[in-house]
């Protein structure tokens, strides 16, 4: 932002030296907490996410490029609120929150409320985002993240985050959120609702994929036409869910 002269702050504060903010851990209640200076690369290599949080595990290696992943953070990415950012979609699909700390203490803001618009978040001027919290799953967590980018490190043409919890074959909770197909991160609630309380089947998957495509508000640009981007939302939603259905069938 500074290089492009969109921002010319008088002062920059380096938060890297604040102790004990580089963690990511799972609490006793099953919620996952990611500290503000925990790097993308830490999440990419995390055995915790690999075993306990499949949507985050799927997204982590797709964020930006290896150089950015060594330096950038999940919390920073959500704060940046770029509609083409990956983590805001993943966090929205997981019903996650951002914890903000200011002179009057801490408050928790759901990511879907936290991201206000392109490059706008809900932090007050005297607040700092200190962690992201993913609530405990309501069953066995499953999910995925798919993204089309023209090149590794390119901004997403389209990204789709799917996070479901299952009890038996019933979907007990579902979240679907979309990257780069609207003025901000898009929550595809109707699509998620179509899965909730039902088992994954070819029909429910098709319904959810269609509703997700309808939730997208893409624009035609040099990355592709609006119709094409909507098609990608449909295909990616369907592919993630079909993959989950297949692994369920194979396990059975």
């Amino acid at each position, binding site marked *: 932002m500074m290089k492009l002269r969109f921002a010319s702050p008088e002062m920059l504060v380096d938060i890297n030296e604040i102790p004990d903010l580089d963690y990511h851990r799972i609490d006793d209640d099953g919620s996952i907490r990611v500290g503000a200076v925990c790097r993308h690369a830490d999440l990419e290599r995390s055995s915790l996410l690999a075993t306990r949080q499949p949507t985050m595990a799927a997204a982590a290696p797709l964020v930006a*490029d290896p150089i950015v992943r060594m330096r950038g953070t999940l919390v920073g990415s959500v704060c940046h609120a770029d509609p083409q950012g990956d983590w805001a979609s993943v966090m929205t699909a997981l019903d996650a929150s951002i914890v903000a700390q200011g002179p009057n203490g801490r408050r928790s803001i759901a990511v879907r409320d936290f991201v206000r618009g392109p490059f706008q978040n809900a932090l007050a001027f005297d607040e700092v985002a200190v962690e992201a919290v993913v609530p405990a799953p309501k069953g066995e967590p499953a999910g995925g993240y798919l993204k*089309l980018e*023209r*090149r*590794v490190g390119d901004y997403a043409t389209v990204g789709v985050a799917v996070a479901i919890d299952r009890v038996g074959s019933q979907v007990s909770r579902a979240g679907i959120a979309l990257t780069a197909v609207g003025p901000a991160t898009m929550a595809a609630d109707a699509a998620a609702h179509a899965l909730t309380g039902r088992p994954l089947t070819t029909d429910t998957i098709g319904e959810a994929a269609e509703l997700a495509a309808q939730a997208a508000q893409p624009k*035609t*640009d*040099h990355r592709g*036409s*609006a119709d094409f981007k909507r098609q990608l939302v449909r295909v990616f939603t369907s592919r993630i869910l079909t993959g989950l259905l297949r692994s369920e069938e194979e396990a059975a």
Partner: protein
Amino acid sequence: MTAVDEVKIGGMGASRRRVEDNRFIRGKGNYVDDIVLPGMLHMEILRSPLAHARIRSIDTSKAWAMPGVRLVLTGETMAARNLAWMPTLSYDTQAVLATDKVRFQGQEVACVIADDPYIAKDACEAIVVDYEPLPVIVNPTQSMAEGAPLIRDDKENQSDNVIYDWEVGDKAGTDRAFAEADLVSKIELHYPRSHPSPIECCGSIADFNRATSKLTVYLTTQAPHIIRAAVALVAELPEQMIRIISPDIGGGFGNKVPVYPGYVASILASILLERPVKWIEDRTGNLISTGFARDVYLQGELALRRDGRILGVRMNTTADHGAFFSDAQPSKFKIGLMHSAFSCYDIPNAHLVARGVYTNKAPGGVAYRCSFRVTEAMFFQERMVHAAADDLGMDQAEFRRVNFVRDDDFPHRTSWGFLTDSGQYGKCLDVGLEAVGYQDFLKEKEEAAKRGRLLGIGISTMTEPLGAGNSREYDILGIKMFDSAELKIHMTGKALLRTGAKSQGQGHETTWAQIVAHELGIPAEDVLVEEGDTDTAPFGMGTYASRSTPVAGAAVAMVSRKIRAKARKIAAHLLEISEEDIEWELGRFYVRSQPDRGVTIQECAVAAYSNMPDGMEPGLENVAYYDPPNLTWPFACYIVTVEVDPQTGVWDVLRMVAVDDCGVRINPMIVEGQIMGGLTEAYAMANMQFITFDDEGNCIGSNFTDYLLPTAWETPGFELHEVVTPCPHHPIGAKGIGECAAVGGPAAFVNAVMDAVKGSGVRNIDMPVLPDRVYEALQTGQDVSGAPPVRMA
């Protein structure tokens, strides 16, 4: 005593490690921006935000008032010194700083010279320019439309936006061939704009010393001597007082051949301020204002006989040159070497009509890893050939084979007048087909289709003319396209070699020494290679268009032979025998009748300074200027297999097989590096690189997040193979190679995708073949054009 072992001394054919990498991988390269001179000031350019507008006024007062600002230049300042406009290498004129109008987005409007670059940039933002917007033209259709605004109203006798109309070939004969054809295959294509995008952007440090009257310019240039001549002509300075130094160059790819306004402005600023002035271009400046490439439209037709023979070719091209015709090309042909298309095929009749137009875009037409439009020529050729084979219902490989010039037909005169020198086209194709497992893949493709999977295979075969020029048909500003080498053998047998070429990554410091080693037997590590300083290097035309080895490399061989001829006389003196009785083997002269009696080249070197024959001039040094009798003609066969995802339009490269015949290889490792680099660029152009314009002339692709350079992550693996047909007229049998893969590669990728989607009835998707274009083509069954303006909702 025996001859030295050529491999051991790093001679021809040795994959010697690049000596320049010693400093590059240690971060010890010395680029223009690394150079800091005492008292140096910094220049920044203010660029036009609009693509076409009249300048009502420019107010620089706020900039002048800022602390640290030393000078503000505008078109008015330049005009007062007759420097507002400069000549281009294509006999047009180009604005240095705009006076009357801006004609493309990013055009140079003013310059600030200040104590540091930040002050200069801030001061640029304080300049107020009052623009009156004018209608904008971003493609040839708009340019040639009735009532289109006149872009070049600065030129006398220019009443429309057409730059030239040009044609070559036999129209009547070609018309007859088409009348007799069993089938005519037609296709319309656009080769989109692309940008060379060297990692190092352009820059200069001009240092005028009033006390000595000498102007030294450190410059990112591929052709320092041409720049010296141009500066002498434009700035009217005496040539001996101009020194151009091209230090380490971080890639050129044709982008660093032209003269840019920033160079001229920094030189004037240094003359006015009598202090060194540094200008370093930023990435956006480089992408939006410096030498673009391509942007040519084609209507192509092939007249075909039922048995697959091509009877005639028609090409009708329209080139979008942007606001100034500043193609950096030395041929006498308006559209460069476009008519070298189809040179690998035996085609009796051919006719090309070419038109060039102005638009409100940055100047285009630099030869990006290319010999002056051969990239477009070979892409058009191989896309036309692919479509024609499909139209005939003929196998892609077989169609090419029946039309190839045969091995015993060389030298072969093409119907557009080129003389190809040598080749084994059929053999190269065979090697490629064998490597890729052609018949097996065709079966696999058929099987996959039954399960709804889209596989495709694309072939691109071509020969291209490399190594401009010969002096009859090629010159720059009247200077003939020869090149030069100067070789000094020191007393201890070590050597200093300088050439008129200029490496920007090609590895001259390594390969030139190998040629000397091959000719003289002096170990390559004993030969220091220097280039790029006009005060020390012999006059040469620089490095671009794959001309280094064909021309300067030949000069290196020739100057080595001159040295050897003198050394032979010294050897005769030392051996006390007549010169006629002496034989040469690598590194050593010996007495024919007594092979163990001999002297080494190093012993001759000592004697040249200490014990020369009576009457012989001391020393062992010489210079050679080489005027090539012809261009060299390498051949390439590129084969790509892909799988297209019908639901997303995404295509993945399964395999990429490259067979290159560039004659004798001096350093096989460097040759392979050149091929891999070229294939990577070919893949990028075919797959992702998109630098276009919206209907207001805004450049879409003005940074590296929009205009993409591929990384190792997505670049496919390449399988390289070789065939060697020595060039018959080159001293060491070598042909150019630097650009082959970038020239011939794109069509292989596009042909593969087109083969995969053939069932939908689509004949063409313009590059870049983006997933959304493939998806659209599959949905509609219609061709997808890539002509600007880009769709932006």
